[in-house]
């Protein structure tokens, strides 16, 4: 039964992530990333990683993508100016990089076929177990992330202050 869910959710995820890259309106890019994150969180629930799926839904779809949407609406972007394409001088380089990536992806696929014999274990990533590990073995990294977020806040505040104090006429200088 659950493999039907996997295929349905996986196809939604692939379609939504193609839409993230190809949609022309930035609003649609952000909204299709919401769909992609939602289906990714469904996949996490299928893998019985409940805590991580819930955090993904709350932090990503709830906070980060609303922030994206806020910035897109704030900037009042001209959609036509976003899609101007210039003549590309590095076309051959892009093609070479594509082939390189394709060959490495084929190697990865080969090792994936060898991994077919592994069976899923019975672990369930509930809030209780993840919390126990997080506050015993991973206590120091968990506390250090607060420093990371603090430094991020400092960065944002200093960026915003610089933009306010120097004003808009910097383009002309």
């Amino acid at each position, binding site marked *: 039964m659950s493999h039907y869910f996997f295929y349905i959710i996986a196809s939604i995820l692939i379609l939504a992530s193609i839409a993230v890259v190809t949609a022309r309106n930035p609003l649609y890019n952000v909204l299709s990333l919401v769909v992609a994150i939602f289906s990714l969180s469904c996949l996490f629930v299928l*893998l019985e990683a409940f805590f991580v799926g819930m955090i993904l839904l709350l932090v990503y779809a709830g906070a980060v993508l609303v922030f994206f949407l806020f910035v897109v609406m704030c*900037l009042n972007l001209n959609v036509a100016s976003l899609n101007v394409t210039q003549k590309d001088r590095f076309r051959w380089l892009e093609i070479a990089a594509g082939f390189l*990536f394709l060959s490495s992806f084929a190697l990865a696929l080969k090792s994936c076929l060898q991994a077919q014999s*592994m069976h899923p274990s019975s672990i369930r990533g509930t809030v209780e177990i993840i919390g126990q590990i997080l506050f015993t073995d991973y206590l120091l990294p968990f506390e250090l992330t607060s420093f990371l977020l603090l430094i991020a806040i400092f960065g944002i505040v200093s960026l915003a202050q610089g*933009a306010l104090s120097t004003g808009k006429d910097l383009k002309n200088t």
Partner: protein
Amino acid sequence: MITLGSYLILSGIIFSIGLLGVMTSRSTLKILLSLELLLAASNLSFVAFSKFNGDYTGQLIVFFVILVAAAEVAIGLAIIVVMYRHLSTIQADELRTMKW
């Protein structure tokens, strides 16, 4: 029966789509969104490995990746807003100087 290989192939497909977006798009907003796709693909393979190896460490790493991604998005969007105020565009090609 869904095996580890199917999750890894799905993760590889999502990663390739995100990498395509990072390499080809010119708007900085779209580059940031494609970076989110890259992080999501790696998160999926972490959780799949965690489930199939019977080890909780993968899910904890995903937790930390989500935290770092939130900080990264906040900084990136702040830079985009400042860039739009100064240059009135968010095209990555327009950023040619390191300092005004």
